[in-house]
């Protein structure tokens, strides 16, 4: 069953990438569709991140601290790698501090 899931994932994802690249070589004219597609990644990533991020580590305090650090570094336009690793580091440090309390 798991392989059926994986096959559906892979085929769906590939077709989404492949079809526009091969079939639709004309530009999209419809303003609404273009706008919708443009906003999709932001809407989707936001929904996946919050509030799930608060439950991504052992404690909600450390997760919230990591969340905060990620936002601050992203506002400074640091790279994906920097932001991701700094959030991890923050969670680690905050959890060690919480242990001491």
């Amino acid at each position: 069953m798991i392989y059926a899931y994986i096959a559906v994932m892979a085929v769906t994802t590939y077709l989404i990438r492949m079809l526009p690249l091969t079939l639709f070589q004309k530009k999209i004219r419809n303003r609404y569709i273009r706008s919708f597609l443009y906003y999709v990644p932001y809407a989707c990533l936001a929904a996946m991140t919050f509030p799930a991020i608060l439950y991504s580590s052992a404690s909600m305090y450390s997760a919230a601290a990591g969340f905060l650090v990620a936002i601050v570094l992203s506002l400074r336009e640091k790279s994906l790698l920097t932001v991701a690793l700094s959030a991890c580091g923050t969670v680690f440090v905050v959890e060690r501090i919480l242990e001491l309390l």
Partner: protein
Amino acid sequence: MHIGTKTDRRGVPRGSLQGEPGHNRFWEGFRHGIPIGLGYFSVSIAFGIKAVSGGLTPFQAVLISLTNLTSAGQFAGITVIAAGASLLEMALTQLVVNLRYALMSLSLSQKLHASVGTLKRCVIAFGNTDEIFAVASSQRGSLGLRYMLGLMTAPIFGWSLGTLTGAVADTLLPDIVRSALGIALYGMFIAIVVPPMKKQGSVRAVVTISLVISTAFYYIPGLSSLSPGFVIIICTLAAAGMGAYLFPLPDEEEEIRDNPEKESLGAEREKGEKP
């Protein structure tokens, strides 16, 4: 099979897509892909851990990474698997979560050299991730197959090896490290979403709408029983739909305005590329 090539020649007025491609060296592409590969490696460790803790074997986790090559889609996918949802729900989740690739592929199709026919496009399509698309579209001139293959190489290796590392190390890693790595993927998502929020009120509005809906679905009794896959679909359709209705993009007149994503990603890339 040659229809694609013909429309390419007819539909693209710019001479740069004919003649010699602007970039068509494998190693140039490979070099450009190294930073992406390193980033993918560290982030996919977290994916490997999450997949294995969700009940998948390391082999299955790596198979997903090798065949999908998408962070958000895989992340949503293992959530769907863990929930034991239907295959239809899986397909719908992937369709909505990965819909943005359709736009990127459309944009990339304008960037590929005339020598890149339908079959070659089928190969390139596999590696069209957010970051690969960002780097590819920030290059000057048209792109050839060899450049694109080079650009895809390091990210594919990094993503798969990182997944393997995370999946195998899962039982070896102490809880404190696993807890810290759990936030890595979310950190990456934040780094993608926040910078455009700074510049565009429309993106701020879309993100806010999505956050409100997703928070409501998480905490309001009754709504919270809905599977996470469908919650992501609902949030995305509602927020992006309202965004398109309230803040439609300017009409296309010139190439840059025609594709705002390309503009913003390209500008970001150029800034980061300065030595």
